[in-house]
């Protein structure tokens, strides 16, 4: 891979509770954190990093609504207008028998649409090679990446702040 000239300082944390306090402490000192990479979901990490709540639930709702209307339109149009058939002398269009298919398509579109949105917003695809700040971040270490270009403090100052806030190692990583 060609070099992009980006310089990062990488702090390694061994424990999720130290990480949570560390993130708070580091942000208080005015250091901008690029991102934290963890082997498992750490509850409360999004809050201390100041991330806004995900809007994926809204996407799921809208996709679900699409499924509901699509399913109802399809069934009413097919059996009510395009080719009405007498089935047991019942009404051509009656809602109760249409509910199961409507429900299933609501769930189907909601789930698929939300997951597709998740992949797109998180830029996840099979042929993507992710940037590895420290390969242990999928094993047992919590890895904090700090973009030096985005911070006014010097490398040494940030390194000291990281150490003071519980980082067990501080490494440099250039891309």
């Amino acid at each position, binding site marked *: 891979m060609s070099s992009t000239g980006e310089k990062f300082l990488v702090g390694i944390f061994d*424990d*999720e*509770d130290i990480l*949570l306090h560390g993130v708070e402490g580091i942000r208080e000192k005015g250091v901008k954190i690029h*991102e934290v*990479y*963890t*082997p*498992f*979901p*750490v*509850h409360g*990490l*999004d809050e201390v990093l100041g*991330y806004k709540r*995900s809007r*994926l*639930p809204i996407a*799921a709702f809208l996709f679900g609504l699409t499924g509901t209307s699509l399913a109802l339109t399809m069934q009413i149009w*097919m059996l009510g207008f*395009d*080719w009405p*058939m007498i*089935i*047991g002398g*019942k009404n051509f269009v009656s809602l109760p*028998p*249409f509910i*199961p*298919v409507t*429900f*299933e*398509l609501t*769930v*189907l579109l*909601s*789930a*698929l649409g*939300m*997951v597709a949105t*998740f*992949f797109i*917003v*998180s*830029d*996840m*695809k*099979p*042929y*993507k*090679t*992710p*940037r*590895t700040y420290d*390969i*242990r*971040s*999928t*094993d*047992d270490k919590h890895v904090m990446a700090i973009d030096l270009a985005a911070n006014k403090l010097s490398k040494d100052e940030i390194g000291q702040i990281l150490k003071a806030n519980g980082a067990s190692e501080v490494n440099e990583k250039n891309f």
Partner: protein
Amino acid sequence: MQATSSVRESLITGGKTVRDVSEDISRHVENKPNRLWWIAFSISLVLFGFGFYCLAALLWEGIGLWGLNKTVGWAWDITNFVWWVGIGHAGTLISAILLLFRQKWRMSINRAAEAMTIFAVICAATFPLAHMGRLWLGFYWALPLPNTWGSLWANFNSPLLWDVFAISTYFTVSLVFWYIGLIPDFAVIRDRATRMGNKTRATIYNALSFGWDGAAKTWMRYESVALILAGLSTPLVLSVHTIVSFDFATSVVPGWHTTIFPPYFVAGAIFSGFAMVLTLLIVTRKVFKLEDYITIYHIELMNIVIIITGSIVGIAYITEFFVAWYGMVPAEFYAFYNRATGPYWWAYWSMMTCNVISPQLFWFKKIRTNIVATFVLSIIVNIGMWFERFVIIVTSIHRDYLPSSWSMFYPTVYDLGEYIFTFGLFFTAFFLFAKFFPVINMAEVKSIIKSSSEKKH
């Protein structure tokens, strides 16, 4: 930070650290499979091969090869279909409903249980597909597709069509849910492969992991997706067996025309599903040495679910009988009287013994924490649940309104063959899963190590 109760038993034993989790679970993907795996896999392949021959013959000759007749138009095919769909339900219950209830003990077992769901639904789907006879035309009969018969569409008033939508949605959503859970774990195997210098494996598992990096923002979205998928799967799983029960309940056949079918079928599904999860996991934990992750405590909790659902099923059997008597409809009453005392009495009483009496043994702590007893009882429960479906389906229709149409159902080798086919398919798929995929959700187990693991003293 998590609150920990000192009363609860540890979910993970052996003083495991986060690193041990990666090591213990990934090892099975990285190492060559052992002899036991090869033996089991070969047996599954033989079953699959024999079953495939029977299925191919069936598609070539037509479903006349089955033992169905004029009176008994549904028998083993639909029995097996309902049985397999039911088995699938435990996976979704564990991964979705227990997630909503914040039950941490689901974490060691949800991966394998969801895999079981997916394979079980595939097995289930083969039966109605085969029963359509001319499978290649099935798409036009089962899906609302434009066709050459005018604008004749599928009949949305039919529960059989609801089934098509329910089962395919259930399969798709379960598959997506399972895969989303697998993504971070594929990344673990990718990074371990990179460190070991195995480039091929790293590339394959990177593609499988969709380039997962474990960023806090991605985890936040990921958890949101998992929660909503759980919220969607919960009514979905309840709807699937409800709709399967509509296949019977919306008919006017005595013995099928029953309003308690939906809850009764759902309870039965969870009952048989948990039994199958136990059967599979007791073997898996032994073969892969996962005793520290799937503990006796996990097995005990699953056995408690079996007592509860088994008792619900038992009450449903008794209620059906009571209503048949109390309703004073002679045909309805006869259907039930015939079930218990007619020519299929042995099937009925096998069902009663296996499903109602045997799980009550789990009231004894000694039995529900005993691995051998649990293994044996889990198989007995599934035999019982197969008989339940057979009893409901065959005994309700084999004595028609006219005694001149009374008949018996005798399975042929092709009935048996397709059942064997699904066993071969199920176990082949499960063994491949156990070899190439992490059988325990590493990311979730790692997240509870601190709060729920037994500490080294």
